[in-house]
């Protein structure tokens, strides 16, 4: 149990540090949203000062940070100046779409790369193994931006899938089933791009860890005892090989989130990415900070889940936790 406690404590500490870091950035900003207002002769300096104090921007840094953390604990992430509405509903309406995208991509990635990795490792040096090695090293080395733009170009040119947005413009009139289908068709391209980029990394790790386990003496013993190939792979090898793969799951969230930002902007998927980009371009501070915080929390949470899953499948970690106590 203390293992989980330690992990949770660490996660909380990390989130606090992330928020402090985000907040420090705001102080280093030379420009502000009010710069453009100042250029407007119709808005008097007094109005701007009043606006500043109404948003609490005239307080010292520490006070603002303390206020912000306190508010954030009550799920209030501040006020977006550009949208003129609270940050939280704004973020949440977009974050849902990002979560839909990343989680579908994550599922697709693992559904494909685990069997593929096991196969490649099992038939080492075979055709599949070579194809996987070549393909993954190519995809890893090519920037995600290029992959996204290239796939988009193909799809747009061949008109295979709809691009841009989540739904067709006339989707209101659709039945529920048709709506889901419409959503899936819009989701297909961004998920495909993201999953392709992630798969290239995951499949290599799965292959490597399966290979390592395949060489273990107990596997050879099991083989010698006449355990069937399928049973050997899925009962004896995979649970052990899953260990590094699961810690990779938490780790891969980082790449997935950064990747989703690119993919969302390129494909016009209305997720967090375009929102944060827009906020960055218009210097909507609290929105940017909220977005970074959200993505960092998602990642820290993902890592925590991975740690707990790791404990569930690996008795060695449970033992280590018991020893520490």
């Amino acid at each position, binding site marked *: 149990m203390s293992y989980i406690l330690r992990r949770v404590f660490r996660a909380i500490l990390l989130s606090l540090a*992330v928020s402090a870091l985000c907040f420090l950035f705001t102080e280093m900003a030379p420009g502000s949203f009010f710069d453009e207002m100042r250029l407007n002769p119709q808005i008097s300096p007094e109005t701007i000062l009043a606006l500043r104090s109404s948003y609490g921007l005239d307080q010292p840094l520490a006070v603002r940070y303390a206020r912000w953390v306190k508010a954030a604990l009550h799920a209030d992430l501040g006020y977006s100046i550009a949208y003129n509405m609270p940050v939280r509903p704004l973020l949440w309406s977009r974050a849902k779409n990002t979560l839909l995208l990343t989680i579908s991509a994550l599922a697709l990635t693992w559904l494909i790369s685990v069997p593929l990795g096991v196969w490649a490792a099992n038939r080492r040096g075979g055709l599949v193994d070579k194809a996987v090695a070549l393909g993954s090293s190519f995809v890893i080395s090519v920037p995600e*931006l290029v992959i996204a733009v*290239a796939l988009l170009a193909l799809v747009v040119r061949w008109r295979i899938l709809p691009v841009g947005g989540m739904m067709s413009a006339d989707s209101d009139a659709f039945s529920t089933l048709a709506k889901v289908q419409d959503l899936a068709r819009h989701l297909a391209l961004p998920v495909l791009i993201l999953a392709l980029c992630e798969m290239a990394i995951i499949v290599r790790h799965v292959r490597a860890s399966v290979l390592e386990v395949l060489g273990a003496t107990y596997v050879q013993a099991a083989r010698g005892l006449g355990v069937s190939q399928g049973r050997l792979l899925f009962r004896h090898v995979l649970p052990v090989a899953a260990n590094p793969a699961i810690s990779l799951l938490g780790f891969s969230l980082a790449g997935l989130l950064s990747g989703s930002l690119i993919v969302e902007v390129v494909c016009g998927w209305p997720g967090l990415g375009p929102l944060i980009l827009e906020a960055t371009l218009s210097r909507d501070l609290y929105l940017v900070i909220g977005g970074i915080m959200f993505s960092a929390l998602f990642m820290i949470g993902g890592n925590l889940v991975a740690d707990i899953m790791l404990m569930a499948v690996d008795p060695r970690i449970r033992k280590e936790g018991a020893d520490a106590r």
Partner: protein
Amino acid sequence: MRAKVLVVIALLFGLHLALLLAGFVAPYDPTAQNRELSYSPPTRLHFKDGSGFHLRPFVYASTVVMEGDQAGSYQEDRNHQYSLRWFETGPSYKLFGIYELTVHLFEVNEPGRIFLLGTDAYGRDEFSRVLFGGQLSVSAGIVATLITLLAGSIVGIIAGYYGGWVDELLMGVNELFLSLPWLYFLLGVRAFLPLHLSTLRTFFLLTGVIGLIGWARPARLLRGVVLSSRNRNYVLAARGFGATDSYLLRRHILPELFGLLLTQAALLVPRYIAAEATLSFFGLGVNEPAASWGNMLSALQQYSVLVSYGWLLAPAGALVVTSVLYSSLAEVFHSRLKSHTT
């Protein structure tokens, strides 16, 4: 294997030479506009005409079709041929930013034009822009890598060598940086820096930000190597003989880091080129009219451009080639490192 290594190195050398001499290789100024020739497709090089085969390729001047169902497309005017001329004078440029020259690798006489990769919306030569954009993007990648490795080595060596609470503190901060999705982080930092700057200042700002954000991973790797090499017998012996910290670091520990640093550099350069391209693509990096592979690609954010003007994908091709070459180099370094240590 050896042949493959040589090919990779030769290609990398060629690529960097072409980018370094961009002004010479490119036939046109990258910012020169030809509004009447916007979105002109790549110029075709001809070898054959009515009188037979020519060793020296030539081009025809193109003009826009004004009427009929082909209106808006370009048509070659077959009446006049314009031969490709090597080492001909053209628009002046500055080599390495110092020497003012006018000689170009190839030119064709006006009104013939040679757009090897077509033109963009303003009629600027895409080939010249890819070269000049590459100059900016690749050097941004290299400079940012140097910054990362410098910062990463300082932190990694201090953490690994001194250990104790220093190590714990530094590695705690390290984990913080690792736990942030880098692109969101980059965007966040970028949000608080001025948007519109001169190209040179943008360049240093971008490389600084990209380089400093990436320090965490190399620092962690270097720390591991320093930690293990610190406790080697010969290091302990030297310490016993009264060697100072700086001597130990210089003589025994830094040489062990060299291979790792090289591998990391070859891995980081393409990643940072991509980072610069991504930021410029988003409009947060290098601004027009200066070219970078990223801001050239951002023209493709309009689907109509993406469908109709495929040659504008050229910077994407350049990115692919550069990235693949650098990763092959990283693979070579990595396999050498592995065979060296085991």
